[in-house]
């Protein structure tokens, strides 16, 4: 346990620089985005109202009010989120392959640690989870700050004020990242982590058997997906609705846990018996 925690900390430390850069980009881009968009809006309003002398009400009718929903939909806001998402998808692979590449193959050290090799897998996964949650938290903290910034830059008559929940509920990707129900949150990230473990298993297949392993890894991903989606494939494929929704829900939870457990078990087997440096 102690070594596992140390490894988690170690993995986080190794990614820290890139992680901080990602957070920095997110903060800067989103804050700048709020200011730029607010200033543009206000400038446009001034132009239209004072130069073209359009009444305020008519301006609002034509151009709409400014609110966080405009900011949240802009590239300033989505861009860094997409960047972070891409970075972490890349990181799922990078977290393993960087230990193999180059002359200083750190994987020797990791595999020779006097601790269960499963700990290496779990610590890498945990590091990813913690950092993903960290990014989500940064977003949660940024939203009220951005709302404030918007308030300072856009006069009351021109803006719609929204609470953090309202902002999130109005935006489909934010809603996936931070759903309003905690159970949904657990389900969303549970599925995410299941996928991480499936990919880890595929990576370890590749690391164990190289070219053949890459193929096995892809096959494993397919099998895992089919198992997890089996009830849905059945329902859609046969246009049947044999299961009641609540049954599907329970079955999916069980299958999700099963697939995750299977992935971890297989990874452990590969790490202990098959992995090659």
């Amino acid at each position, binding site marked *: 346990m102690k*070594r596992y925690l*140390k490894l988690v900390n*170690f993995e986080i430390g*190794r990614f820290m620089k890139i992680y901080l850069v990602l957070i920095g980009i997110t903060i800067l881009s989103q804050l700048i985005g709020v200011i730029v968009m607010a200033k543009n809006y206000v400038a446009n309003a001034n132009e239209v109202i004072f130069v073209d002398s359009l009444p305020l009400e008519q301006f609002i009718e034509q151009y709409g009010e400014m609110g966080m929903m405009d900011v949240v939909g802009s590239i300033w806001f989505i861009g860094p989120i997409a960047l972070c998402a891409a970075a972490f998808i890349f990181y799922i692979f990078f977290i393993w392959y960087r230990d193999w590449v180059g*002359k*200083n*193959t*750190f994987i*020797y*050290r990791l*595999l*020779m*640690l*006097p*601790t*269960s*090799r499963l700990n290496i897998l779990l610590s890498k996964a945990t590091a990813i989870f913690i950092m993903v949650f960290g990014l989500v938290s940064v977003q949660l903290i940024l939203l009220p700050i951005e709302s404030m910034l918007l308030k300072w830059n856009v006069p009351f008559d021109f803006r719609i004020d929204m609470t953090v929940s309202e902002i999130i509920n109005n935006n489909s990707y934010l809603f996936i990242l931070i759903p309003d129900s905690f159970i949904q949150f657990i389900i969303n990230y549970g599925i995410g982590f299941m996928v991480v473990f499936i990919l880890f298993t595929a990576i370890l297949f590749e690391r164990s058997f190289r070219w053949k392993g890459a193929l096995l890894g892809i096959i494993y991903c397919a099998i895992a997906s089919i198992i997890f989606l089996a009830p849905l494939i059945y329902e859609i494929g046969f246009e049947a609705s044999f299961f009641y929704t609540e049954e599907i829900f329970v079955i999916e939870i069980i299958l999700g846990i099963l697939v995750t457990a299977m992935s971890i078990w297989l990874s452990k087997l590969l790490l*202990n*018996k*098959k*992995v*090659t*440096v």
Partner: protein
Amino acid sequence: MIEAKELKKRFGRKQILNGVSFTANKGEITCLIGINGVGKTTILKGIMNLTPMDSGQILIDGEKMSKDMYEKITFIPDAITMIPTMTIAEAMQFMQDYYKSWNQARATELLRFFKLKQEEKISSLSKGNTAKVNLLLGLALDVDYLLMDEPFSGIDIFSREQIADVFTSHLVEDRGVVITTHEINDIEHLIDKVVLLDNGVVLKEFRTEEMREDEGKSVVDVMREVYRG
């Protein structure tokens, strides 16, 4: 004692090891000799369970390899296995974090012996110094067995001498050491036992002093005989 029995390993179409058996005793230096690509490194990785063998058995003091054995046996590969951006001090801290067998006093001694500076980053070290840090990280573990892969290859002559000094010092004394090399000359007098490998099998396994005493042959003589014959 490290016992390797009938080790077999195939990479793709190439049968790297085809039934390799030998033993290496504690308190002795055993040298695996063979031209490059003969599977010496694979054997060491096999012992450490870094590369699974297709068949065969490896016992260390009669026990199979397990996670706890990494406190008893260690492997020093031919390149350093630390993150290059770490300083030497951080690398030592890492070892101390995970190994009960880490001996900080000995690590400090080795630092002095090799004249290394703790604050230096691994990536900024010369080739020779990198090899020394690599050696240090393995030697500072209080383990019974040390496996070293080509400890002398590609290193300048002064570093080589310093590293050779280690073998005659208390740092290695009483431990079982297995080293691989394709170049025996420098260390001929240092080793107790030689295992000659080729084509995935052990061609000859002998003790150097006995060979000199009984047949008046140097290791190189035997190699010449074995590989040419």
